[in-house]
């Protein structure tokens, strides 16, 4: 039995009178790829925002490798080992591609303000290391030739890849991908699918992904959770989900007649 890296119990949040998410439980094992699907407005992105503490959950518990991250700030969650991408890409648009990655390496670089002002050897050494690390990550995703371009100038697909690189630079144990295939054509989606598997294998991370593209979800997820109106209505393997009547109803509506 693999040890879960992420344990989430009874997570919930209210926005005023709306229970946006309730009684959400998820346990993710190391190296697992879990899909999170559901109709628009089901609360999928809310789950990510709660896990990373962009919103403070009203109740529940979140545990990353035994570390309780409830109530810690977003950067604390990232430090504990969970990083994410965003549904509508949030790059540091006016900065260079390599700086986007080096920003995410922040916690891996250790030199003080004074060491950097006086440009002591530790500054040069650590900066060199960070640049090398960033270039290595970029080259894995075929972005190294764009290293010095401004992030907003990249083509759409490359921007999505850069966001993933940035998330990986924080050295996560769990990677949250929010609609990574949004706006991609079928061949790009197929490439992404291969990439996601590779990320899992190369970086030994667990991946939770929100996606509307069913071919992608069914193709790579080992397990799928279906949300509707803030509640988990089904969970299981892709095969089970495909044939689950509750899921079919949520997506297509009830069959009339009988």
């Amino acid at each position, binding site marked *: 039995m693999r040890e879960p890296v992420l344990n989430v119990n009874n997570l919930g949040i209210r926005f005023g009178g709306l229970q946006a998410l309730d009684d959400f439980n998820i346990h993710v094992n190391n190296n697992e790829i879990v899909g999170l699907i559901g109709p628009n407005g089901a609360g999928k992105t809310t789950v990510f925002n709660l896990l*990373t503490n*962009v919103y403070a959950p009203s109740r529940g518990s979140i545990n990353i490798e035994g570390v309780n991250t409830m109530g810690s*700030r*977003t*950067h604390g969650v*990232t*430090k504990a080992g969970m*990083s*994410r991408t*965003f549904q509508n890409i*949030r*790059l*540091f*648009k*006016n*900065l260079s591609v390599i*700086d986007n990655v*080096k*920003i*995410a*390496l*922040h*916690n891996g*670089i250790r*030199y003080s*303000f004074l060491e*950097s*002002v006086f*440009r002591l050897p530790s*500054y040069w050494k*650590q*900066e060199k290391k*960070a640049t090398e690390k960033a270039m290595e990550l970029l080259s894995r995703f075929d972005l190294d030739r764009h290293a010095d371009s401004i992030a907003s100038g990249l083509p759409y697909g490359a921007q999505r890849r850069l966001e993933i690189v*940035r*998330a990986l*630079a*924080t050295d996560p144990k769990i990677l949250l991908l929010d609609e990574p295939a949004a706006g991609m054509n079928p061949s790009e989606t197929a490439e992404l699918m291969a990439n996601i598997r590779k990320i899992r294998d190369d970086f030994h991370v667990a991946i939770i992904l929100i996606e509307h593209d069913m071919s992608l979800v069914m193709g790579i997820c080992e397990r799928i959770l279906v949300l509707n109106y803030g509640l988990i209505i089904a969970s299981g393997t892709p095969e089970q989900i495909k044939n689950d009547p509750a899921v079919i109803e949520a997506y297509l509506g009830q069959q009339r007649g009988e």
Partner: protein
Amino acid sequence: MMNIRFKSTKSRYILNAAAVLALYGVLYAMIENGILNRYAAGLLMTAGYNIILAVSLNLAAGFLGQLPLGHAGFMSVGAYASALFTLGLEMDGAVEFPLALIIGGLVAAVFGVLIGLPALRLSGDYLAIITLGFGEIIRVVILNLSFTGGAFGLQGMKRYSNFTNIFIFAVITLFVISTLIKSRHGRAILAIREDEIAAEASGIPTTYYKTFAFAVSAFFAGVAGGLYAHHLCILDPSTFGFMKSVEILVMVVLGGMGSLIGSVVAAFGLTLLPELLREFAQYRIIVYSLLLVLVMIFKPSGLFGRYDFSLGKTVDDLFIKLRAPNKKGGA
């Protein structure tokens, strides 16, 4: 590539140091020989601490991406702290003055943290209003305390500020802020400007770095205040009002938010401009305002945008340009 002459960082440092020394040498000689009269030299010194003020505000406005409107408040705190220090002690000027400036800076930085912690929870217009309020509070408190001299202000400071030490501190400010920007701390500050949520998600403690940038910005404003106090040798609380903050902000915006060279040029230009326009007498404020309006219409990102000057790179480019026609001739 053969053409890249100043590629190594070491040679760039040497080049920059040489350029700074040359600039200092030329200006100093001009003052000593009387080519620049006392009035012009005084103007140059005013430009010097305006450069420090603009560059330090640019850290908070251009690089951190906030809009603080209380920079004059930090300047006044630094001015009073350093003035009270030199007035209270009898020490050799060479020891006392640098110490006074650093103390002025540190006290201003403490105020930066105190004001930054609550203010930086807000952003945009709200931050502008709250910092404006704090700036005014500082001024009014100084006006009403007895040890700051109240409305009479402080006087009797020794005239420690001269062209040399203002120049040195302007260079230090530029050096510290430009090296800060090109470090992990600076990248964190830039990330906050670009996207705060993404910065947090990338593991950057945004509250810490916002406060940090604010404190560094306030520190140098305090140093500039100290230089100001020992240049005019009289402190009047009414000079540190809202208009002074706006004046500094205008320099930053005009030069370009996020461009250090822009702040330097704008601070220098806007110090000189009102003097050059003296012959227009009462119309000079109109000309001044008109200029700002025109720049904002035709180049809203400021004169330099986010461009940052690198002497090494400029010289390299120049060499490449000079060499290009030669190559054609040879082929």
